[in-house]
Structure formats: structure tokens, C-alpha cells
């Protein structure tokens, strides 16, 4: 998958072509710099490494500084590798949001917001017990039975239970691009994308 790196700015709503109010996400996408081109001969596979968002020189380790120097660019914060990137991307090239077009469909990858330790109702969408009557006392959001008895005498692996929720890599498929604004490096996508405002996103074409 080829694509570019972006940063989620926030959400707003706009009036679409037919006048409908459409919720959309504003993303600062690019400019990204090609910092490494991997080939089958040298690395065993083909890929392109993109870098995004300027970092402070003093917060960059010396090995990374050298890495960025090879591409002749300032230190960056986020490095992402893309397989099957266009072969015309060469070391030091700048990839802007121009790479995407209006009315295209893309996948957006982000890290979802961390929710902490959550029960099964929030985490897996269990419906809970559903009522307060029939002797219910304090089991309203309990998971219920987690398996049978003497056979199989164990709880099966992968049983959905309470636990850490969110904070995971999530991919939103088939998001519609409403607008590409190349001068401001802004990308407007219909609907919501994973992650908090200010978090990094991968926009896959």
C-alpha cells in the first residue's frame, strides 16, 4: 500500500454539493520526505520510507540525524514505510497531498483513543442484562456465562472479557476524500477517523 502521513487536526461540518450537512475530518497531510528507498537487492523487499512533521534537532539522536542527512532534510518526528510505492519516488523527494485527488477513496490508519480498563458492554458491545426486575440486583453490565461446566472444564481462548480498551491501531476503510487543498497541505475526509486530535495518521491509497 502506498500513501502519505498526516496529522489529525479535528472535525467540523460542511455543506456538501447537494446542500446536505456533512461531518468531516480535517487532516494536515504532508509534505513528506522520502528518507529511504528499500530494494530487493539491498533489503530483500521493495519499500519507500516517508518522514513527516519537523522535530527539534536537540531531540533527535545522532544516528537518526545521520539518516535524515542522507536524504538532505531536517529531522522529522514520524517515519513510516510504504510498500508498493511509486517507483519514481527517489531519496530526498517531497511527497505532498497532491498525491491524492478529490472524490478518491482511501483507507485511514490511526491509533484509537485509549479508554483504560473497560467492561464487556463498552469493550465488546455486549447488551448487558437489560432489565432491573426479575431478581436483578447488581449484575446489569455483567458478561453472564463464559462457558460450560465439566466439559470442557476450561474457558476457551479468546473469550471476550473485560480489559484494556482502545489505544490500538485501527484502520478505517473506504473513506471519501471531499477536498484536497494543496496550498495549505489540508485534506478533508468525510466522516470520522481513528485517534485523538493531533495524532498521526497514515492515509493509504
Amino acid at each position, binding site marked *: 500500500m502506498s500513501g502519505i502521513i498526516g496529522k489529525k*487536526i*479535528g472535525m*467540523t*461540518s*460542511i*455543506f456538501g454539493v447537494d*446542500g446536505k*450537512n456533512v461531518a*468531516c475530518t*480535517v487532516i*494536515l497531510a504532508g509534505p513528506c520526505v522520502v528518507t529511504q528507498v528499500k530494494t530487493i537487492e539491498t533489503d530483500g523487499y521493495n519499500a519507500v520510507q516517508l518522514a513527516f512533521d519537523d522535530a527539534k534537532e536537540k531531540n533527535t539522536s545522532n544516528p537518526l540525524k545521520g539518516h535524515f542527512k542522507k536524504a538532505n532534510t531536517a529531522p522529522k518526528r514520524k517515519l513510516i514505510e510504504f510498500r508498493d510505492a511509486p517507483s519514481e519516488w527517489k531519496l530526498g523527494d517531497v511527497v505532498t497531498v497532491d498525491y491524492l485527488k478529490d472524490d478518491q477513496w482511501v483507507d485511514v490508519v490511526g491509533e484509537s483513543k485509549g479508554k483504560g480498563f473497560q467492561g464487556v458492554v463498552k469493550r465488546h458491545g455486549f447488551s448487558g442484562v437489560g432489565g432491573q426486575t426479575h431478581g436483578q440486583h447488581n449484575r446489569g453490565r455483567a458478561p453472564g456465562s463464559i462457558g460450560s461446566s465439566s466439559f470442557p472444564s476450561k474457558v476457551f481462548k479468546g473469550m471476550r472479557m473485560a480489559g484494556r480498551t482502545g489505544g490500538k491501531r485501527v484502520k478505517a476503510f473506504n473513506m471519501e476524500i471531499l*477536498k484536497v*487543498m494543496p496550498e*495549505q497541505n*489540508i485534506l*478533508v475526509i468525510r466522516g470520522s477517523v481513528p485517534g485523538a486530535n493531533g495524532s498521526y495518521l497514515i492515509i493509504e491509497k
Partner: protein
Amino acid sequence: MDAIQLVQNEFLTKKEVPAFKAGDTVTVDYKIKEGNKERIQSFKGVVIQRNGVGATETFTIRKMSGNVGVERIIPVHSPFIDGITVNKHGKVRRARIFYLRQLTGKKARIKERRHFEHSK
């Protein structure tokens, strides 16, 4: 935040909206699509609040239809709005006059503000 404003300006069609606030009586002409035909329907009532800023600002408008109160929330910059006319400026002390929902009949009247200068 700045980027969001840029996007909003990009999509916004500039239209003149008269100055009005909570307590004012306004008539909103909005377009309704029925199949291929488009017609205009008006809704006259009291503005009970304005909510939000910029391109996503909305206002709530309330009228009594017979004995039933009807409220509509309308985006200020909605392209479906054909026009907004201010019929009367009301004299109210707050920006959100939800107390009007509890009042009926003669108590639900709002005094008119005649001599004033709008800050907007």
C-alpha cells in the same frame, strides 16, 4: 484550529444574514425538495437560542402550532435557507430563553424592543 477555519471558509457560500438574537421573531423561508420540484415554505417563530460560532452556527426557532409547541434547529448558513426576515426585536434578558417552553398564552408574550442599536 486555524486549519479547520480554512476548510470552513473554503466550503462556505457567503450570504448576508440579518442580525438577530434570542427573543426576536423571525420568518425563515426554506427550500423543500419534493421529487424534482422545489418549493419554499416559511416558518415564523421566536428565536430561543443561537448555538455555536462561524460556519457551524445554528439557531433554534419556536412557534406554537395550535396548542403544540414546534421547534426547529436551523444552521445559519444552510444552503436550504432562501431568506431570513426579522419581524420583531424582542426584549429579553438572557441569550437562551428556554423558560418560554413552560409558558403559554398571555404569559408567553415577549415585549418589543423599539429603540435600540444592534451591536452587530
